[in-house]
């Protein structure tokens, strides 16, 4: 994508590829794309046969990273960018994504996606880090909002404003996680609909949906529980405003029977087709 050009892709319905889901994904009709976890792949060597099969059938691949630490104090490490770029080429990914977060600091790894302080100063660091990443990658870069149980004190910006400014200034795309938005809205008292209003829709690459669980007075975004009602309601609200190029379901653990996953995908498709209907009427 050159500056000024918009993401032209239509991805459709997607699923995060995990070895445990390979069989389900292989047989489920109607999947337009799958998302591969960048850290699980090497730039050389064979792909798992299940993925080779999907590729031969023309499945679209997108690549998803969790370790760039774009919201970290240091610029993204060249070796991590190199790995991401080569894996993207290796699997033929049409875009690459990572999160607006930091994952390491002071020589410590967190193993988790951690929130950034929402200050102007942080935004300047993010803009530079993201530009460096974007320049090193062979395909468009999309940035995702995270779920967090804890917030930094005294934010100068709300999250939607920070995301909007970041993607505009770096000419990148948005990977909108509606489960994460629900989690933060629930845990920190945000107003999710006005949050949605502040995003630049033309930069939306695709949407993440996932399950979670209410525990100890907080909502935990686990990717290991059923998809609850609220992210679907947010998807419906989103579809009233724009037509998302893709929507992807993530499941990372406690894999349910195929019928349950299929029902979750059907619920997503249902919301999307009602949205299509609404657009057609207008």
């Amino acid at each position: 994508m050159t500056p000024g050009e918009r993401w032209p892709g239509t991805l459709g319905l997607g699923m995060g590829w995990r070895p445990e889901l390979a069989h389900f994904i292989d047989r489920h009709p109607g999947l337009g794309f799958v998302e591969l976890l960048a850290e699980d792949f090497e730039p050389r060597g064979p792909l798992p046969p299940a993925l080779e099969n999907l590729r031969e059938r023309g499945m679209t691949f997108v690549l998803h990273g969790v370790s760039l630490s774009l919201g970290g104090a240091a610029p993204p490490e060249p070796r991590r960018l190199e790995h991401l770029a080569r894996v993207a080429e290796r699997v033929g990914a049409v875009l690459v994504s990572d999160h607006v977060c930091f994952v390491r600091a002071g020589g410590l790894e967190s193993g988790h996606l951690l929130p950034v302080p929402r200050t102007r100063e942080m935004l300047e660091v993010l803009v530079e880090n993201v530009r460096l990443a974007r320049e090193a990658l062979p395909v468009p870069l999309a940035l995702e909002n995270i779920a967090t149980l804890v917030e930094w004190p005294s934010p100068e910006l709300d999250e939607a404003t920070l995301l909007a400014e970041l993607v505009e200034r770096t000419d990148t795309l948005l990977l909108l996680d509606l489960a994460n938005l629900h989690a933060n809205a629930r845990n920190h008292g945000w107003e999710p609909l006005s949050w949605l209003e502040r995003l630049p829709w033309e930069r939306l690459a695709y949407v993440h949906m996932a399950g979670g669980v209410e525990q100890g007075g907080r909502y935990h975004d686990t990717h290991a529980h059923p998809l609850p009602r609220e992210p679907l309601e947010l998807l419906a609200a989103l579809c009233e405003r724009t037509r998302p190029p893709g929507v992807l379901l993530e499941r990372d653990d406690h894999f349910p029977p195929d019928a349950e996953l299929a029902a979750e995908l059907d619920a997503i498709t249902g919301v999307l087709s009602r949205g299509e209907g609404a657009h057609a009427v207008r």
Partner: protein
Amino acid sequence: MPSDDARHRLERAQAGFLRALTGSAPSPPGFERSDVEAAAESLASKRRRAVARTWPSLARALGDGFRERFDAFARQTPLPARGGPLADGRAFIELLSREGPLPEAVSRQVLGVDLRFRRSGDGLVPRRGFSLVHGVLPASGYRLLGIRWAGHGERWFRLPAGMAVPVVLGRRWSSQRS
């Protein structure tokens, strides 16, 4: 462009926050303490679950004791920078192996991982080219020998426990002995 000062300030603030989340420092000023504690608990449990999933032989072998022993290890040991839960679990097993012999299912999984990854100061690094590992499995009474050529597959051989693996092979190609 952000100034170097901005990056330094951010580094200090993020490092303080992360230390609080890994339980090695109190909650930084201004943060909601109960939220920091909930996030710290969530991080610890995610780390433990990731290792249990990546090392099923280990979680099965330790059973109910896994949680307590892993958490004690995790409090003392930062997460490795490379190799994620595979490397984290490998470091935990290294500690356990100093306390006594490992259950055989764990030893087998360790050999499989060591054939594919080299241990480095900051975790695990994928091996390139040719590699070889071997280890005695006392309960089964044989020695297991694994040979791999990266990108071309691996082969495993069972040898009588008493049979020595040629020293030349051991020196040149084996970097792990279990």
